[in-house]
């Protein structure tokens, strides 16, 4: 019984990081109705950023956070201008295809360079013991960092002028343009923030688990499940959705083979979409 409890607590710690990843997805989705299918690959890009800085250059792993954040933001702005700008306002299926094609190119380049070998970043931090069970220090620190970054996003969206502009554009782009908000620039910055969140969460996941260039698909699916649980375009809901997913993963891991986890999560995704089309934790005007 204690084992299950420990597994659940660990699941919640990891779930906070999933929630952070999903915040990046849902931010873009909520503001411009664009589903970013490069999301999984951007998570992997964060992992490889960590690998490059920590293992190849020998820097302490957590020092990789600022460069990954900035790199993710720049990649997001570039993504906006290449694939998203012309798609805003067109049917959502078109942006799905355009971001999908960018994703193909990134995955193609990645597999061309690194192959599909397994990479691992060693993080040795003292854990916290609870009876016979020890929670790895990396899990705890990743959860704390995820919570801090999520809180800063909340402060950004609600307390700064630029953040308020992002919410205004999400609410009504034309009205925002009328009151003098440079909406195109705001959209570009939003995609930048969304991708930066994906990359940073990827970097944090990279401190927890080994990864390959193709790991993105699984994490992207998790982000979708979390987004659906939390309600679309609702960053705070996404964080709660992440915790819920982590709770679930922690609860089923002791009983179910690992390869079935994604299947169960996918079934959950469809069931939630059918039962609660607005998301489980959603409330009106959450942005």
């Amino acid at each position, binding site marked *: 019984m204690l084992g299950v409890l420990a597994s659940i607590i660990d699941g919640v710690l990891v779930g906070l990081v999933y929630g952070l990843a999903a915040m990046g997805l849902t931010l873009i989705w909520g503001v411009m109705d664009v*589903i970013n299918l490069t999301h999984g690959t951007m998570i992997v890009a964060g992992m490889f950023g960590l690998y490059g800085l920590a293992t190849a250059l020998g820097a302490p792993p957590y020092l990789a956070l600022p460069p990954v954040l900035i790199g993710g933001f720049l990649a997001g702005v570039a993504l906006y201008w*290449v*694939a998203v700008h*012309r*798609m805003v306002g067109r049917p*959502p*299926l*078109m942006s*799905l*295809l*355009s971001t*999908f*094609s*960018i*994703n*193909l*190119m*990134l*995955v*193609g*380049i990645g*597999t*061309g360079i690194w192959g599909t070998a397994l990479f691992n970043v060693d993080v040795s931090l003292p854990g916290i013991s609870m009876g016979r069970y020890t929670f790895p220090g990396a899990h705890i620190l990743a959860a704390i960092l995820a919570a801090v970054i999520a809180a800063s996003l909340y402060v950004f969206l609600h307390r700064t002028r630029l953040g308020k502009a992002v919410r205004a554009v999400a609410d009504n782009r034309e009205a925002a343009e009328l009151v003098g908000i440079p909406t195109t620039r705001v959209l570009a910055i939003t995609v930048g923030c969304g991708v930066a969140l994906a990359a940073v969460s990827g970097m944090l996941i990279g401190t927890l688990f080994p990864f390959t260039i193709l790991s993105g*698909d*699984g994490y*992207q*699916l998790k982000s*979708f499940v979390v987004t659906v649980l939390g309600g679309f375009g609702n960053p705070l809901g996404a964080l709660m959705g992440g915790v819920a997913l982590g709770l679930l993963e922690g609860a089923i891991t002791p009983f179910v*083979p690992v*390869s*079935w986890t*994604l*299947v169960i999560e*996918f*079934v959950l*995704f*469809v069931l939630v*979409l*059918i039962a609660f089309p607005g998301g489980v934790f959603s409330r009106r005007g959450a942005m």
Partner: protein
Amino acid sequence: MSLLRLTRRPFFWIIALVIAIFVLVPWLGNDVQLRESLLLAALYITLASNLNLMLGYAGYINFGSIVFFGLGGYICVWLVNSYNWPLSASLLTAGVGVSALALFFGLGILRLRGAFFALSTIGIVEAVQAFAENFTPWGGSAGVYLSSSIFAPLGGPARALWVLYFMMVGVMGLSLYLSYAIKSSKFGLGLLAIGQNEDAAAILGVPTPLYKAMVYSASAFLPAIAGGLYFFKSAFIQPSDAFDLSLSTEALVVAMLGGQGTVTGVALGAYLYEELRGYLLTSQTFSNFQLVIAGALLLLIVLFFPGGLMGFIYSRFPRTQKVLE
């Protein structure tokens, strides 16, 4: 429109001509290399045309069309290997079985609209692949090997390859006729209405959930048979080949390249893409970057030529719209 009336349209005979060329040219020349290249082209045309039923007609993106192909392959190989079923019966069972599964699941997941459906199709690939990897009769992640004696009923390996090629061309022809028949039917009209505006279609009396599930199921039948043929031919199947995501991606690229919603365009796009791919794979520089090329191609089409090849041809030569579907 009844089948008999379809034969009076010129387009019916254009398809027949294409099939005849596919059959006769490699056979009369006894050209094995051309046959292998055309076999892949026929496979691409089959996958893309059936994907087009969802994408071009109903406006639903299916990122997981490869599931039909892979499952069909698995069912067929499994029946041949474990139960010694004849090929024809295994293929038919694969087609009907996968189609029935698609109808069953389609009624559920097609309650999701637009983008949500597209997302759930990504999940379906993961789910089915996980199933194949864990299902012991299918050999887990090691897969299933067929012994070379399976080719005996078809008259030995050399002759069997020709027979399988002709069957694949047959499946391609059926795909083209299916696309054409659906497009010129009331069912197809309903699908096009869904693609334009699903709410309006529902209000006008189109039974949208049923139609969507039906087209999803219809688009599963021939790819499943093609999968059966393909993996019977290679006498080996494993999850990473059967559910190779790049194949369903390429089917999407092909359908967009040719022009979604058109029968000719998709076939043309598939043929051109297969030729391009053959060229890229043999070149040293590009063989590792096949996905990059596919992605770049798709991006250019989506950004600048959403109508694809046929959109271009239609706008330059408006009269072709009367003949080419």
